[in-house]
């Protein structure tokens, strides 16, 4: 499933990386704990989190995920979005809660990393 399809399904706003939404996603890591993302991400997963500080993008960069989706209506401040743009990491935000996002994407065939 592409990032563009995921954007449509989750009714998400793209905050940066509009040009990279053709990336294909197979697996997802979802957590508010950054060490958990770092422990499970292998490479190029989609990262879902409710944590919107600068460390979320730092973690995304170090873990090598393909994009970040912020859940439950949380929106990072400008500095965080600019940092994501600099690191070339697409970022989206949706009003949906993490449980619903994971359920919907799992139903569409995406899997977690274990």
């Amino acid at each position, binding site marked *: 499933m592409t990032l563009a399809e995921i954007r449509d399904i989750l009714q998400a706003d793209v905050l940066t990386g509009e040009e990279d939404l053709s990336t294909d996603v197979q697996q997802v890591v979802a957590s508010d704990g*950054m*060490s958990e993302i*770092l*422990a499970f991400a292998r490479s190029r997963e989609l990262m879902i989190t409710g*944590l919107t500080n600068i460390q979320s993008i*730092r973690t995304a960069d*170090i873990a090598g995920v393909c994009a970040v989706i912020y859940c439950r209506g949380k929106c990072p401040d400008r500095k965080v979005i600019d940092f994501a743009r600099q690191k070339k990491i697409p970022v989206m935000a949706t009003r949906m809660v993490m449980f619903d996002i994971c359920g919907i994407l799992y139903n569409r065939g995406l899997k977690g990393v274990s």
Partner: protein
Amino acid sequence: MAAELLREKFALQGRNFDKAGEVSSEIKVILRDLGIDATTVRRLVIVAFEGEMNVVMYADQGTLTLVLTDEDIRLEIVDRGPGIPDIDLAMQPGYSTASDELREMGFGFGMGLPNMKKNSDEFRIESEVGKGTSVFVRIRLNANA
């Protein structure tokens, strides 16, 4: 004896959360530009980042030294901080002394040190209460790379 190809020492500043992770990002670029394989770089920068976060969260200041040889990559993370009274306990997944404030920043869930060990081929930690903590890590270069 492994031949040393690169040695670089970085300063880490405790409590500076805006800068936390900058050194690890820099190391990622350095190693990638040297043509080190992606898996090794990933493992190394996860160890560096978790170590860097630990220094920022708990210590006053520290240093991170990156050493590249023709056989491996080594990291030495040394801080001046409170030290760890019980290292075995600190290594247990889920154990943490982090404040709620630190947890709200997405860290301090007791996975940092286990994560560092998991991504290392050799991992050693020494600590003295009231003085500080030192972590030594070695990751072998992928022979197939």
